[in-house]
Every structure is written in structure tokens, then in C-alpha cells.
């Protein structure tokens, strides 16, 4: 079932209607298992003690925030280059979800930082980059809402999304240059994660769980978006019908 098969909205609606319940079930299962491992099984950190458990939601949320923006960028290419009819639907559905995950990453990061650094918010490199990403999400959503006609807005927002995506590495590098207070990125170190497996496994399970949850939410949001466009098309028809019928 290639991407083009999904191009047809109704086929997408019928396929997604079948897949979504299973996705929700899988998400609940994996997240339940992940939370159990994160909260109960995994050991405490010798320095931070129990607060390290916040990592099990902070890191997946931050990854999901990044992942969603990447998905939006890919969808934007779909809108601009392949003119895929569902590309804008996918991007528009992903933005609020990505923004929510980024917000969660910010709040959990702040809560995680308070006991360690003694301040609610520390302008360290990674948290600040996530904050800038959050602002870019708000920009995308605001621009989408500024257009009434989704077809016209799609291309314009797609350009903003791509421009934003290209700038993410630049922002990341410059923010790190601006401040190197944050502890070295343990998970992304070249020589592999420095975390013991007993911590890494729960983290990866949580990451998988959150990803499945994201796909379930994203497909549901896409369905809403398709319905919203059908309502809009019918409202236009209603107005035209009244005009042509000379009622």
C-alpha cells in the first residue's frame, strides 16, 4: 500500500478507521509496560536519586517534538513538490500534537532541572533549543489559522515549515555555542549512550510507546481535518446552491 494509495481521502478514511483502534490499544499496552519499568524497575541515579525518572517522559517528549516537526517538514515537501492532497492535512494535524509534546518536554525539563540546578528554568542549550522549537510550532499554527481557505494556506505554511526545518540545526548549534551549561548529552554521545541498560531499556520502551501514541493521535487528527474540509466544501456548496437556485 504505497503512499499514493493513501492519496485518496476516502480510502484513507476507511483504512485509518480500521487501524486507529489497534494503534490506541498498542499505545496503551507499550506505555503501560514502559511506565511500570520506568517507575518501578529502573534503578535510581547515584547523583540525582529518583528525579532521573522524569527523564523517561522528558526525553521521549522532546524526541516527539522534534519528530513531529520533521514529519511536518516532510509533509510540506509533499504539499509543495508532489502536491499530495493529504500532505497539508497531515502537516496541519501534526502541528498541535508536536507543540503539545514540546510543551511537555519544556515543563518536565523545568521540573527536572529545579532539584538539580535550583532554578525553575535554566537557559541551557538543549532546553532553550526546545523552547525555540515550541515558538516555531506556535508560528506554524498561527499562520495556518490566518488562512480561511486551506488549499491556499497549505503552500504558504509549507514554505515556512521547510524554512524552519532547515534552520533547526543552525539554531541548535548557535544555542549550544551560546551556552554550554547543560550536562553533556548522555544519550546522543558518539560513543553510544553512557546510561546503564537498566535505564536505557525503559527509556527506549517509553520512546516506542510515545511514538505509537503519536501515530494514533496523528491519524485521528488527520481524520478530523478531512472532515473539517468536507464540512467547509459543503458550506460553500450550500451558499452556491442558494445563489444558483435564486431562492
Amino acid at each position, binding site marked *: 500500500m504505497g503512499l499514493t494509495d493513501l492519496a485518496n481521502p476516502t480510502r484513507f478514511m476507511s483504512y485509518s478507521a480500521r487501524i486507529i483502534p489497534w494503534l490506541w490499544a498498542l499505545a496503551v499496552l507499550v506505555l503501560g509496560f514502559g511506565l511500570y519499568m520506568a517507575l518501578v524497575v529502573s534503578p535510581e541515579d547515584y547523583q540525582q536519586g529518583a528525579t532521573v525518572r522524569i527523564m523517561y517522559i522528558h526525553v521521549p517528549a522532546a524526541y516527539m517534538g522534534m519528530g513531529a516537526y520533521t514529519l511536518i517538514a516532510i509533509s510540506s515537501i509533499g504539499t509543495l513538490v508532489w502536491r499530495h492532497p493529504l500532505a497539508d492535512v497531515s502537516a496541519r494535524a501534526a502541528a498541535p500534537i508536536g507543540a503539545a509534546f514540546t510543551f511537555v518536554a519544556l515543563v518536565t525539563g523545568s521540573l527536572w532541572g529545579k532539584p538539580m540546578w535550583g532554578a525553575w528554568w535554566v537557559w541551557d542549550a538543549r532546553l532553550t533549543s526546545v523552547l525555540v522549537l515550541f515558538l516555531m510550532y506556535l508560528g506554524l499554527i498561527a499562520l495556518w489559522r490566518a488562512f*480561511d481557505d486551506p488549499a491556499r494556506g497549505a503552500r504558504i505554511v509549507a514554505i515556512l515549515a521547510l524554512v524552519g526545518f532547515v534552520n533547526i540545526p543552525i539554531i541548535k548549534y548557535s544555542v549550544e555555542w551560546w551556552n554550554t551549561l547543560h550536562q553533556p548529552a548522555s544519550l546522543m554521545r558518539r560513543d553510544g549512550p553512557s546510561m546503564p541498560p537498566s535505564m536505557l531499556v525503559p527509556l527506549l520502551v517509553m520512546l516506542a510507546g510515545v511514538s505509537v501514541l503519536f501515530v494514533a493521535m496523528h491519524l485521528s487528527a488527520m481524520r478530523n481535518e478531512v472532515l473539517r474540509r468536507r464540512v467547509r466544501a459543503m*458550506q*460553500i456548496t*450550500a*451558499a*452556491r446552491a*442558494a*445563489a444558483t437556485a*435564486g*431562492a
Partner: protein
Amino acid sequence: MFHGVSFSVEGGHALALRGPNGVGKSSLLRLIAGLVRMDAGTLELAGGAPDVPLGEQAHYLGHLDALKPSLSVIENLGFWATFLSGREAAREDLEAALDAVGIGDLASLPARYLSAGQRRRLALARLAAVRRPVWMLDEPTSALDADGQRLLFALVGAHLSCGGIVVVATHVDLPFATTVLALEAMR
């Protein structure tokens, strides 16, 4: 802008303002409506409420339709009916006004989906929804199709038959506007 302009219109009659573009037909309408300050001369509605300025006893239909795209058709009309009359507008009256201009079944649609003609009719519905003795219409037939114009003439006819006054700036001959005030450009 004007000088030596004087006119009078009895109840139940309509006055048509004619003249080339830019001669000031719209400005004269806005002046009567009280939107523009009058340097000299008097403006008086014999028989109207004495202390109430003319503008508050008149409807003004300008080139713009005063509609908000994000509000629905009936919300737009409901707002103006309440705001201009000071009383809560009953839904039946609003629906009746919408039917009078032929867009009754678009009531719940957002106004952004209306065509120019339909928006013009929604603006006209304001006149049907709130009773005011004097109507000032600035090229009311613009953007209206044949059916729309028929409804407009019916509305104006009803208004005139119960003693209302209409002052209309127009380029087109209107059946209801018999007496004409031709404005010439200043030499």
C-alpha cells in the same frame, strides 16, 4: 463641498440623487446621516422625534456591507438588530428579515462563504429587521441580481407605502425614485 443644495422629501416618497461620479452623491448621503459635519444650513426631519439626531432615525446602506466573515449570517444580522434598536432581536424577526431578502436558508453559514450579492442582501436585511423612518441608500442595486433587485424594490415599496422616506444615490433609473435631485460638479 456643497453650496446652494436644498431639497425636501415628503413621507412616502423617494428622492434620487443623480450626477456624474465624484460629484458628491455619497458625501451628501453621509452628511444627512450625520457622519460628516455640516458647516452651514439646517437638516430637519419634520414629524420625527425632536431631540433625536437624524442619524439615529435613519438607515444608511453604504458601499460596504458591515459584515464580519467569521460570524454566521444570523449572528451578523442579530448583532446589528440589537445594536441599532437597543432591544434583544427575536430570532423569528431575524429569520423573517432574511427571508424578505431571499437568504433565509443560509442563516447558520459563516458570512465568509457568501457571494457579493448575498452579502449585499444580508446588508439589506438590516433595513428590514429594524424599523427606521428614513432610508439612505448608496447605489443599493450594485451586486444585486435581477431577483435581488426585485426584492429590494419590494422592500422599498413597503417602506414607502407606510410613510417612510428614501434618499438614494444611483446611476440607474429606479422605479420607486420619481423625484430627482441632479447634482452638478462645481465650476
